């Protein structure tokens, strides 16, 4: 592949002039064709390199290696995608479970709050007003009435007194731990609050059931009447029990799982 031109036998003078002087011989045509082919091929090669990028020129073994690397990388990425999708599913379902558990916990907290007397309650029920003109209605009478109300299915109870017209005096929410004690000079001490007659129970529960339970012979109403008191029952569709008890935090007891 050494330059044969330099081994030319008879050097000719006036190279530039010859180059600029058109002559048409077969060899000239061949030279022109070759140069045209060269320009054509060069342009085609440049274009294909630009269009197809470096991969078009890569050799077969290089391409195989590149392909191997790409498929390895593909496998790794696919595995990563699977793992991420898995954790996404876990997180999504976990969020759903957590939300459901939270809603359930809130619902139970409300219900337990009604039972414990830490949240207000409303609903159908009745008012039992007890007057005590002879001051013979003692704490145990009220306690009997309370037990009867509970037995009849009362769900929220508050005890008020003294009731006069629209005034309801002191209000005490009745809960599991409610204690009724006779006052020293009349009246009844409920959970440390002194209530004076006339007393009134505001009860939320099934009005018909509770009313009939109160009115059975020898029952609450009878007992009060025997002691010279007056018992008035007044049912309502939308009563409100809004006296609240403070939430007692247990010092020793902890919830057991």
């Amino acid at each position, binding site marked *: 592949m050494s330059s*044969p031109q330099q081994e030319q036998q008879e050097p*000719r003078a006036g190279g530039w002039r010859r180059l600029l002087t058109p002559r048409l*011989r077969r060899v000239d045509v061949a030279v022109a064709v*070759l*140069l045209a082919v060269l320009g*054509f*091929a*060069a342009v085609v*090669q440049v274009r294909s390199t630009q269009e197809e990028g470096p991969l078009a020129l890569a050799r077969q073994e290089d391409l195989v290696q590149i392909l191997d690397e790409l498929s390895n990388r593909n496998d790794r990425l696919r595995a990563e995608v699977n793992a991420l999708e898995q954790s996404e599913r876990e997180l999504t379902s976990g969020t759903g479970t957590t939300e459901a558990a939270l809603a359930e916990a809130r619902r139970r907290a409300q219900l337990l709050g009604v039972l414990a007397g830490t949240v207000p309650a409303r609903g159908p029920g009745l008012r039992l007003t007890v007057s005590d003109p002879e001051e013979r209605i003692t704490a145990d009478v009220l306690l009997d009435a309370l037990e009867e109300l509970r037995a009849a299915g009362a769900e929220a109870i508050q005890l008020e007194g003294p009731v006069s017209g629209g005034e309801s005096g002191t209000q005490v929410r009745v809960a599991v731990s409610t204690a009724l004690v006779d006052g020293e000079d009349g009246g009844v001490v409920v959970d440390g609050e002194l209530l004076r007659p006339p007393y009134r129970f505001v009860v939320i529960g099934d009005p018909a059931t509770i009313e009939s339970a109160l009115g059975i012979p020898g029952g609450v109403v009878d007992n009060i009447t025997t002691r010279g008191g007056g018992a008035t029952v007044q049912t309502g569709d939308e009563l409100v029990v809004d006296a609240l008890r403070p939430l007692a935090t247990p010092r020793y007891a902890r919830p057991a799982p």
Partner: protein
Amino acid sequence: MIPALALVLGVVLGLTLEPTVPAALQPYLPIAVVAALDAVFGAVRAQLEGIFDDKVFVVSFVSNVLVAGLVVFLGDQLGVGGQLSTGVVVVLGIRIFSNAAAIRRRVFHA
């Protein structure tokens, strides 16, 4: 003059036709182009030195291209195609540089 016009014509044809390189020719075309460039630079140098000959140019051009393609083809068959193409390009590149240097000395006398 005519060869230069032919070169321009080839470039224009390549730009306008926009052909795609056949897959079988893809490894050989770049080497063939470099080999042809070597022949052309040699021809220009010979022209400037006043020893240019058409037939020699045609033979050297064709044989350059064929030999370069053959070497790359052989390399492909032997499994060293990539390395041999690199070797051919390096050799041709050196020759192009030396020819370009000779041309420069002729033209600029430097």
